[in-house]
């Protein structure tokens, strides 16, 4: 193969066709609240870990739906489960269990 000094760059476009429906349904069976996020960002705004790291439950939910589960796990790995997000969520999402469940379901390959 010839090295031209440049090559194909990966697309930043998310491909929803790669969305793993089975895994998502598994997650939704454990914690159905994953369905009802409306991306208001309250959880991220109050996040204790978010002060020091890139932590966002809102983004993690989004990432899962956008077929980027690894990114979702990255968004949650610094979480301290303090529960502030559950107190501020306007939809009453059971955030701590959602975080644990996402980690459980998507950590296992």
């Amino acid at each position, binding site marked *: 193969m*010839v090295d031209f000094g440049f090559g194909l760059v990966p*697309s930043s476009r998310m491909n929803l066709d790669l969305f793993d429906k089975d895994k998502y349904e598994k997650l939704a069976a454990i914690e159905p609240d994953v369905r009802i996020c409306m991306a208001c960002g309250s959880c991220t705004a109050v996040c204790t870990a978010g002060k020091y790291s890139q932590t966002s439950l809102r983004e993690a939910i989004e990432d899962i739906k956008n077929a980027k589960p690894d990114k979702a796990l990255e968004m949650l790995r610094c979480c301290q489960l303090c529960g502030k997000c559950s107190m501020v969520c306007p939809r009453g999402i059971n955030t701590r269990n959602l975080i644990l469940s996402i980690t459980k379901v998507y950590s296992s390959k």
Partner: protein
Amino acid sequence: MIYEGKQKIWSEYQKEIPDDHYFYVRSCIRQSFFPASEATFLDITRNVLGKDIFETEHHTTCGGIAYHSDTIPQETVMTIIARQFALMAKHGYENYVCSCITSFGLYCETMETWREYPELEAKIHENLWKSCKLEFAKPKFLVHASDLIYKYRNMIAAQAVRKLVNVHTGEPLKVVEHIGCHYSKMFPSKGVGGAEYPYVLVGMIEAWGGEIVDYPERRHCCGFGFRQYFIKGNRGYSLSNTHKKFESMEPFKPDLIITNCPGCPYFLDRWQYVIAESTGKTYGQDGHGIPALTYEEVAGLVMGYDPWDLGLQTHQVGVEPLLDKMGVEYDPAKKYLGKNGKDLGSPSPCACLK
């Protein structure tokens, strides 16, 4: 795909293209990469169809590449354009036809800008006078050379010796049409068929017996993108763009790509080589590429021009399988002979691309 739906859109985007008497300006890139295309254009229009197409050696670049690469300001490019218009007026022409899509886009942009800001036009008059002591008049009709071939497509078909048909199967060739971005994406009304379903090349393909391929990434840029190509560090983006198009058209198994822009045939052609040599992937049949030709080259082929006279040997992707399919006779030995019959030397063979 509902054909009637497209026809409806085409009917809404029709522009007036005068039949004759044009002032012709060349394309910097095409002169260098595909010089035979412009020669073929002039030959077909002047000699075969008997049209009055005037050109002068005094015209220059339109400045588009420099403009789009952010190296010259708009007023400068407008003044260059004004000079071209002045040359046209000087030679008594009102219809302006350009070979280059970048130029076409820039002329449209300039004329629209002047329409919105007449004071800018006045300033350009002043600039041109100061710099060249010339007065310009805007063209009455501005068309792209492909518009003209589109206009003459049926005349060409009438004189054609062959069609865009696979002579072995009798099936029409599957043709991908690729329009230069600046042809109609900026001003859909300035292009035949608009921006979403441009008809300018489709009309030729239909008239000459081919079958059009509508693949998902048909709207996507060829990957030229000026700065994306000029700076080596960015070339990966350019390449990836082209790659995306080929991945998308691959399932449709096209026989041929036809383009109307200087950069597109170049990048659609050369990047196939780069993709093949760096990843091993080829998109044509049996390790070949998909030939990416200009509309003049295709017109020349159906009219029975010799492929080497059309400059098809300047393409990286070999055109022989296409010529075979179309039943074009050619002498492989003459592929790399110059006009004077001397051997120009042949390029070193590719590892992956046949």
